[in-house]
C-alpha cells in the first residue's frame, strides 16, 4: 500500500465534549492510558497497605492493627491477624501487585499513552477495543476487591492459586469458597482485557507508523511495549482457558485439576483423576512470561530515558537492546518449569528448564552491561528520572544476581520456600519495575499534564525509596539463607525465633519506605495542578512525544503528519544547535547508521 494514503484517519470524529465521553468512556488512547495509570495507583497503595499489615504481624505477632477488625471481624479478631487471614493478605497483595500494578502501569498505562505518539499515530488501531480493554480490567479489579467483602473473606491460595486447594472449594479453608471463585473470575476477565490491549498494541505498531518511522527507528520503549504485547497475547491466551477450567472444577464439578481420593477437612472430595501439576504447568506457562510482561516495559522505559540524561546514544546502538528484548521474549516461553523444581516433576525436566533459565540471563546481562557502559564517561544530568533509572539498574542487578543461584535446581531445592526467593522476585520484578514506573512518571509528567514535577521532592523521594528498598529486601536474602520459610504467618520454631529481630527491622523499613511514597503522591497531585508549566520539550529529548504540545492535542500532533528522519537517540551530536537531533529534524547527520 502506498504509504501516503496509509496515514489512517482514526479520529474521524471531532473531540468529545461531554464529560462522560471525554473522561469516562473515552476512545482517546491518552485518557485510557491515564485511566490505567490511575487504576494502578489505587492498586499499588492497596497492595502496599496489605503488605504493611503482613509486615506488622511478622514483626509483632500479637500486635493489634487498628481498623483491621472492622474490615474482617473473623480474619483479624481484635485486630490480630489469624494465620489464615495472613494467607488471604498474601494472596491479595500478590494478585493486586502482579496483575493490577506491574502489568497495568508500565505496559498498559504508559504504553497506551505513548506508543501511538512515539510512532506518530493519531490513536490506537482500534479505539473501541481500547476503551473496552480498560473497562474490562476495571471490572476485574472490582471483582477481585469484592473478595474482601464476602462472608469468609479473600482466598488463601496465593497469587499462583495452586490446585487442588484452589480447585476444591470451601473445604480447603476460609476464603476458598466464594472468595477463590471471585479470584478465578477476576483473572479470567483480566485476561480478556489484556488480550484486547495486546491486539491494539501490535496492530498499532505494525500499521500506524508515520512516514519514515521504520521499525529500526522506533524508540526502545515502543519496542518494549510491542514485544511485551506479543508475549502477553500468547501468555494471557493460556491463562484464560486455565482459569475457565479452574472455575469449572469449582462450580461445575469437573475434575481437571483435582485427583481422586482426596480428603480435605475430613471430607472425601467428589472428584477423580485430575492433575494438580497440570494447573502448575498452565499457570507458569503464563506466569513466567508474565514476569517479563512486567519487566520488559521497564527495561524499555529505562533504555529510552537513560540516553536523554547521559546525552549520548546507548553503547552499541539500540539494535543490540532490541535484540536483547526479542531474545528475552522468545526465551521467556521455555523457562516456566524453573518455578516447579520442587513440584515433584522429573528431575531430568528440571535440568532441561535450568539450562534455558541460565541462557535467558545472557540477554538480560547484555542489556545491563549496555546501561553501565553508557553511563561510563557520560556527563549525566542528575534529574529525578535519571536517578530512578540508575536506581532501576542497581536493583535489577541486585535481584538478577540472586537469580543465578535460584536457576540451579540443587540450590533452589534449599532456597525455594524461603525469603531468599521473596527477596529475589521483589527486587528484580517488583521494585525494578516500580522504579521504572517512577522514572517514567517523573519523565513524562510534563508531557501528560503539561506541568513539571518538583525536582527537590523527587530527589528526596528517590533517596528515601532507594535506601528503603535495600533495607527491606537485602536482609531477606540473609533470612532465606538462614532457612526462614516464606508464607508462614508467625515464627515459633527454635531456629526461627532468633531471626525475629531482623523481621522487626524489615517491618520498620517497610513502614518508613511506604510513608515516603506519600511524598510522591503529594508531588504528583500538587504538580498536576500547581506545578510550573512545562515546555514542549523540557528534557531536550528527541522522540516524537516531545514534538508536540504538552499535553498533546486530541489528535496528538494538531493535524500535522510527521516525517521521521532519524533514530530516537541522536544525542551528543557535535555541531548541531543543541547537542541533539530530533527524530523529525531533516538535518543530515554524517556517519548515522
Amino acid at each position: 500500500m502506498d504509504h501516503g494514503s496509509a496515514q489512517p484517519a482514526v479520529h474521524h470524529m471531532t473531540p468529545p465534549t461531554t464529560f462522560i465521553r471525554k473522561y469516562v468512556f473515552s476512545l482517546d488512547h491518552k485518557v485510557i492510558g491515564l485511566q490505567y495509570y490511575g487504576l494502578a495507583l489505587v492498586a499499588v497503595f492497596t497492595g502496599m497497605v496489605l503488605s504493611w499489615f503482613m509486615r506488622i504481624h511478622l514483626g509483632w505477632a500479637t500486635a493489634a492493627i487498628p481498623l483491621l477488625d472492622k474490615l474482617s471481624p473473623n480474619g483479624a479478631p481484635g485486630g490480630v491477624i489469624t494465620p489464615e487471614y495472613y494467607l488471604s493478605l498474601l494472596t491479595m497483595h500478590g494478585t493486586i501487585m502482579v496483575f493490577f500494578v506491574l502489568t497495568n502501569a508500565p505496559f498498559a498505562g504508559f504504553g497506551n499513552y505513548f506508543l501511538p505518539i512515539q510512532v506518530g499515530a493519531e490513536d490506537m488501531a482500534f479505539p473501541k477495543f481500547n476503551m473496552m480493554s480498560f473497562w474490562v480490567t476495571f471490572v476485574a479489579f472490582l471483582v477481585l476487591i469484592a473478595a474482601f467483602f464476602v462472608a469468609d473473606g479473600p482466598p488463601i491460595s496465593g497469587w499462583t492459586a495452586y490446585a487442588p486447594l484452589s480447585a476444591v472449594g470451601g473445604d480447603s479453608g476460609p476464603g476458598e469458597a466464594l472468595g477463590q471463585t471471585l479470584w478465578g473470575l477476576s483473572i479470567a476477565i483480566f485476561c480478556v482485557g489484556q488480550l484486547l490491549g495486546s491486539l491494539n498494541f501490535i496492530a498499532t505498531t505494525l500499521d500506524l507508523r508515520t512516514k519514515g518511522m521504520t521499525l529500526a527507528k522506533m524508540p526502545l520503549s515502543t519496542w518494549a511495549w510491542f514485544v511485551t504485547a506479543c508475549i502477553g497475547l500468547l501468555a494471557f491466551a493460556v491463562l484464560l482457558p486455565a482459569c475457565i477450567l479452574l472455575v469449572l472444577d469449582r462450580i461445575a464439578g469437573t475434575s481437571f485439576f483435582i485427583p481422586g481420593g482426596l480428603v480435605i477437612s475430613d471430607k472425601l472430595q467428589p472428584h477423580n483423576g485430575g492433575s494438580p501439576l497440570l494447573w502448575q504447568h498452565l499457570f507458569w506457562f503464563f506466569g513466567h512470561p508474565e514476569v517479563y510482561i512486567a519487566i520488559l516495559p521497564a527495561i524499555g522505559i529505562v533504555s529510552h530515558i537513560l540516553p536523554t540524561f547521559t546525552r549520548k546514544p546507548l553503547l552499541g546502538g539500540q539494535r543490540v537492546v532490541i535484540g536483547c528484548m526479542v531474545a528475552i521474549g522468545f526465551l521467556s516461553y521455555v523457562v516456566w518449569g524453573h518455578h516447579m523444581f520442587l513440584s515433584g516433576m522429573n528431575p531430568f525436566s528440571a535440568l532441561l528448564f535450568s539450562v534455558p533459565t541460565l541462557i535467558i540471563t545472557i540477554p538480560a546481562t547484555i542489556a545491563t552491561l549496555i546501561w553501565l557502559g553508557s553511563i561510563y564517561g557520560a556527563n549525566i544530568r542528575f534529574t529525578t528520572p535519571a536517578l530512578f533509572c540508575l536506581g532501576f539498574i542497581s536493583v535489577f542487578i541486585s535481584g538478577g544476581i540472586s537469580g543465578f543461584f535460584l536457576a540451579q535446581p540443587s540450590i533452589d531445592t534449599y532456597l525455594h520456600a524461603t525469603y531468599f526467593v521473596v527477596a529475589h522476585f521483589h527486587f528484580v520484578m517488583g521494585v525494578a519495575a516500580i522504579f521504572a514506573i517512577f522514572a517514567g512518571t517523573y519523565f513524562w509528567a510534563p508531557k501528560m499534564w503539561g506541568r513539571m514535577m518538583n525536582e527537590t521532592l523527587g530527589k528526596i523521594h528517590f533517596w528515601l525509596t532507594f535506601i528503603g528498598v535495600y533495607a527491606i529486601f537485602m536482609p531477606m536474602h540473609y533470612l532465606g539463607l538462614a532457612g526462614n520459610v516464606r508464607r508462614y504467618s508467625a515464627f515459633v520454631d527454635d531456629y526461627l525465633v532468633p531471626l525475629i529481630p531482623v523481621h522487626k527491622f524489615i517491618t520498620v523499613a517497610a513502614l518508613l519506605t511506604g510513608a515516603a511514597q506519600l511524598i510522591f503522591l503529594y508531588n504528583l497531585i500538587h504538580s498536576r495542578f500547581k506545578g510550573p508549566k512545562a515546555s514542549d520539550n523540557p528534557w531536550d529529548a528527541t522522540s516524537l512525544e516531545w514534538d508536540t504540545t504538552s499535553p498533546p492535542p486530541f489528535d496528538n500532533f494538531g493535524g500535522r503528519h510527521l516525517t521521521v528522519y532519524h533514530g530516537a537517540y541522536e544525542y551528543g551530536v557535535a555541531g548541531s544547535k543543541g547537542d541533539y537531533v530530533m527524530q523529525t529534524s531533516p538535518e543530515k547527520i554524517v556517519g548515522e547508521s
Partner: protein
Amino acid sequence: MASTTYKPGAAGAISGAKLTVEAGRARAAASPIAGVRLEPSQTGIWVAICAISMCFAALTSALVVREGSGMDWQRLVLPRILYFNTAALIASSFTLEISRKRIAAAAANADPRMRSYAPAMNWLLATLALGLLFVAGQIVAWRNLAAQGIFLATNPASSFFYVFTAMHGLHVLGGLAGLLYAMRRLTRTMRTPKPVALGAAAVYWHFMDVLWVYLLFIIAVRM
C-alpha cells in the same frame, strides 16, 4: 532543567556522529517504509487468530496431560449430527467466498450506479444461515449427549468435549456478529469498492472452519 549544566559535544565524541549543515534534505526517501502494510483490521484478525490458536493449543495440551493422569478417561459415543454441522460450516465458507467474488466483480464496474450488490448479499445471508445452522446443530449435539446421561462433569472426555464445543461456539457467534457488522458497513458504503471489514471477517470465518475441523479431529481421535 536550567540549573543542570553539561558540556555539549563532549559526549558526541563518544557517539561518533557528526552533523553537517545540509539541512532541508528529505531523508525519508532514503529510508523506505518497511515492507507492505496491511489494513489494521487485517493485522488485528491475524493477531487474534494467533491468540485463539494459543488458547486452543493450551486446551489440547491440557487434554493430553489429563488423559494420561487418571484412569477415568471414557470414550464418548459422538452424536452423528456433528458431521452434518461440519458440512454446514465448511459450506458456509464457500458461500462466503462466492459472495466476496460477486462483490469484487460488482466493484470492478466503473460506473458506481451500475454496481449491484444484491446477489452478493443473498450469498452472505446464506453464510449467516449456515453459521446459525452450525450453532443450532452443536446445541442438538449437546442435547443428544445429555440424553445419553453425559454431562459436563460426567467424565474427563465429556468435560473437554463441552469446553471445546462451547468455546468454539462462542467464537463462531463472534464471527457471525463480525459478518453482520461487515454487511452493515457494506450496505452503507456501497460505492467505495473496498470492503475491508468483510475481508477481515472472512479471514476469521475461515479460521473458525479450520479450527473446528481440527477440534473434530481431536474429538474423534481422543474422545
